[in-house]
């Protein structure tokens, strides 16, 4: 990357830029970029709209960012609103606010909190979620999947090596008692996860509704409702859970 030619840009009030190559991009007011942006660092504290692709090494969003194209980054931290209309590739993504990806996302590590929605497939080496609402309309494919349930989660399909789905502790809601009483309905802290198929090697589930669960070692914890479990080595089931059919597969 030729850093010599790259300039910093700072948008404080309402402003429009043509886009292009930048070093640091900082949007404090309301910034619109009318073509793709390629930068080293982007910080959006205000409203930022990019009418094209965004490529950045690192990025921080505290306000709102709206990328009308695809997004490539090494590290991205979104605490506010983030919407990407096309495919997204971020090596390390941490979201705390409201993140919506309308394409596929591929990553090495995703740490999803708050509201996290992906319309396409979600590929990552590690996927961690503490989301209030997790909505993945495609396949969640990760080696290590660790989901804590706080609200209503929906994932179309889950595949991976180690899959852990547990109900999160209520402590964070206690801390946020005020917000909870204002915003969240009571059963928010009694969430669940709905999915079609879960396939993996080591599977542990709680409060999950699934049509089929297939794996080597399958443990069904509390509050599950599974139509079919197929396992190779071990299968354990909690008394509170419903498993309509379980089959051992002999390889």
């Amino acid at each position: 990357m030729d850093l010599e030619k790259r300039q910093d840009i700072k948008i404080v009030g309402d402003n429009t830029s043509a886009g292009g190559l930048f070093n640091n991009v900082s949007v404090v007011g309301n910034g619109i970029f009318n073509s793709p942006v390629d930068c080293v660092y982007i910080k959006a504290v205000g409203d930022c709209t990019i009418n094209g692709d965004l490529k950045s090494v690192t990025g921080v969003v505290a306000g709102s960012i709206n990328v009308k194209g695809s997004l490539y980054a090494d590290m991205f931290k979104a605490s506010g609103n983030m919407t990407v209309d096309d495919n997204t590739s971020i090596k390390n993504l941490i979201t705390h606010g409201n993140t919506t990806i309308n394409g596929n996302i591929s990553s090495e590590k995703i740490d999803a909190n708050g509201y996290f929605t992906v319309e396409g497939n979600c590929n990552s080496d590690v996927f961690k979620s503490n989301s209030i609402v997790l909505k993945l309309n495609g396949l969640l494919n990760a080696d290590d999947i660790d989901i804590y349930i706080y609200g209503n989660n929906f994932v179309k399909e889950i595949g991976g090596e180690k899959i852990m789905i547990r109900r999160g502790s209520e402590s964070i809601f206690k801390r946020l008692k005020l917000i909870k009483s204002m915003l969240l309905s009571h059963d928010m802290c009694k969430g669940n996860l709905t999915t079609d198929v879960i396939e993996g090697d080591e599977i542990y589930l709680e409060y999950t509704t699934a049509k089929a669960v297939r794996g080597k070692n399958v443990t069904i914890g509390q509050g599950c409702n599974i139509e079919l479990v197929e396992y190779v080595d071990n299968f354990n089931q909690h008394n509170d859970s419903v498993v309509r059919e379980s089959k051992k597969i002999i390889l």
Partner: protein
Amino acid sequence: MDNNDLISKKELLEITGISYGQLYRWKRKNLIPEEWFIRKSTFTGQETFFPKAKILERVNKILSMKDDLSLDDLANMLSPNPSEIVLSLDEIKKRNIVSLISLELYIKTFGEEKEFSFNSILYIYIVDEMIIAGDINLEEGKIILETLKENYNKFNGKNCDLLFVRKFGVSTCFLVSSGSEVYFESGAKIIKRLNVAGIIEELKIKLVNGGEPNE
């Protein structure tokens, strides 16, 4: 290649002994193309099927090479697009990728090039295979080199076959898109039909493994 022979995901794991985790990881790393995952509804709901011959070959290939190579290297190698490998003349000689005879034939035909692109190496490699197998002589090798150089790019990375035909000692060669059927008069004899995609894979393995013949 219209084999409708499908294999279910469960059967695949059963036959090859791989786990769900491995399969999903390979899919994620693009070692297994997305279009091989065929969804069909069965009485137990949706199930995934694969083209049997292709997936078994691919899985065995991955299993046999995954100890030596990282998954990213493997993905690079298995993708059908020619890699952006460029080698110098010395490197080709040193790494023993093609025989000197074929290399000299190429230089004699097209002049010496400073750097050989992946495609150039591929052309030499194809001719080299045929010369070593005794299918063709040097003069015929030259025809094949010229045909490949002039026409291979027109396939735009699509899979194609190289056919080499001889009749009463007169020989010719041509490229056809893969899988298409060709018939000749009875006097003509197909000496060789080579699938270029197969050769590309072979060559990539050779290039990545350092050029030593891997037995």
